[in-house]
């Protein structure tokens, strides 16, 4: 099938990236996060909130932000936004500044900011207030703070985006799906510039208890920093983390006209659904395979163009293997020698923020010619027939046509794959 794909530029508008922003367990912005990732540092740490002991939670650690949002935002801003929207705003401002605060008509500027869970901090704390103090004490901004589109609305207001503000919810595929949707807004002519990404703030007692009840979380409470170990034979679940990654997407024509520095290209995106099980991945990874093929097809690329994969690889026993199968069927023999990184080994799992953060990692990898490491793998699962980048960053080719693939999958059977080209080469 892919052999029949013409190796030419797609007829549609090229979508470039001109800004990146993030706040993560590894750092308060993209440079510090990337530096920590290349150094192989873990962002997992013991949780200090009182509820951990009070409620006897089975998991007592997580990937909390390296720089608390309340240290960055003034109180009058932070108190009006759920933490998930706060993180998106911090990342969005960094991305917008790096893009040079492009001058664009509001009606040509869009926002797509996704979250997997939405304003759950606000929902839970408002319910606590209701129970403890009664309905009169429930604040009037509770609804706009808890709604899952709150972050998208806040960024639209911040940057004056009037072409549409969207919040695709696809669990842990949300951040990647937001970038795919944003690229589509540009390709279909709805916008010239789109601020796109994902965010999550769900390190709270209820989500921890609920994910633990699914046996989705690692229970390595004694050694948080080694808990996330994708592809290791002893992996026992993911590490719940928080944060946001946001990019500024722009039509190539718009970026060129204003002389913007191009950081990379969203060459293609593929989105599919499994229709298999509400939480478990299709064991053969068929939907994931189709997503990767669709991304490559839109990029006008071949499997052999892929030099790097930032895998979804959350460190769950079942999920990691389903993705390995999908990668093999999507890329075939071309997968051999491709540098595969599982950066959740360091960041933990940002849920709705994961896909967009990992897209940023792909852009940085192509910019610097370095695939970030996968840490904590002491014994590679023999079923993982991938060339995993272990412990140290690895040089990758960044020539013309070189692509990175970014996979994100979510409960509900959502699959999103992004084909990303670096600043010097695009599949087009």
């Amino acid at each position, binding site marked *: 099938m892919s052999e029949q794909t013409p190796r030419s530029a797609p007829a549609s508008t090229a979508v470039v990236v001109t800004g990146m922003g993030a706040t993560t367990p590894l750092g308060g912005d993209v440079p510090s996060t990337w530096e920590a990732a290349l150094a192989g540092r873990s962002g997992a740490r013991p949780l200090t909130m009182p509820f951990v002991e009070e409620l006897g939670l089975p998991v007592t650690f997580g990937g909390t932000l390296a720089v608390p949002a309340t240290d960055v935002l*003034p*109180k*009058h*801003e932070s*108190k009006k936004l759920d933490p998930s929207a706060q993180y998106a705003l911090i990342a969005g401002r960094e991305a917008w500044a790096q893009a040079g605060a492009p001058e664009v008509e509001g009606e040509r500027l869009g926002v797509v900011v996704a979250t997997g869970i939405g304003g759950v901090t606000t929902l839970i704390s408002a319910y606590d207030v209701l129970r403890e103090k009664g309905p*009169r*004490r429930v*604040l*009037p*901004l509770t609804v706009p703070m808890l709604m899952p589109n709150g972050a998208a609305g806040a960024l639209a207001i911040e940057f004056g985006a009037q072409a549409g503000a969207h919040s695709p919810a696809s669990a842990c595929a949300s951040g990647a799906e937001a970038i795919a949707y944003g690229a589509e807004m540009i390709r279909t002519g709805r916008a010239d510039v789109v601020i796109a990404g994902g965010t999550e703030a769900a390190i709270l007692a209820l989500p921890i208890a609920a994910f633990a009840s699914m046996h989705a979380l690692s229970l390595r409470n004694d050694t948080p920093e080694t808990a996330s170990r994708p592809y290791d034979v002893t992996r026992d679940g993911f590490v719940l983390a928080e944060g946001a990654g946001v990019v500024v997407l722009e039509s190539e024509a718009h970026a060129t006209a204003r002389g913007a520095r191009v950081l990379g290209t969203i060459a293609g995106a593929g989105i599919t659904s499994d229709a298999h099980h509400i939480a478990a991945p299709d064991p053969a990874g068929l939907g994931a395979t189709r997503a990767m093929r669709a991304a490559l097809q839109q990029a006008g690329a071949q499997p052999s163009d892929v030099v790097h994969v930032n895998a979804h690889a959350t460190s769950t026993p079942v999920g990691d293997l389903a993705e390995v199968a999908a990668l093999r069927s999507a890329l075939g023999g071309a997968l051999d020698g491709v540098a595969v990184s599982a950066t959740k080994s360091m960041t933990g799992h940002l849920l709705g923020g994961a896909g967009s953060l990992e897209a940023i990692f792909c852009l940085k990898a192509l910019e610097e010619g370095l695939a970030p490491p996968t840490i904590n793998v002491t014994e590679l699962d023999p079923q993982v027939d991938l060339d995993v980048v272990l412990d140290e960053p690895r040089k990758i080719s960044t020539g013309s046509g070189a692509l990175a693939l970014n996979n994100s999958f979510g409960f509900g059977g959502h699959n999103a794959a992004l084909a990303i080209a670096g600043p010097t080469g695009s599949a087009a």
Partner: protein
Amino acid sequence: MAQSENEILDGIAELVNEETGLPKESVEMDKSFTDDLDIDSLSMTSIVVHAEEKFGVTIPDEDSKNLRTVRDVVAYIQQAQG
């Protein structure tokens, strides 16, 4: 126990600052919350909810909608604290 007018004014100024980021000194007795300080109705409701807690009073909706200026609020709280 009733607080002094200045104590209440300071407290209101603090709440307005936390809610909107406006400097505390801009919250003066004769300023209107909506016309002068540009505070929208949702933020105003938040300020009233916080004021009830801070000053230990109850400000029913039918009364709070008539509180136009900072002086109105200060006087209301002082009277309610009795």
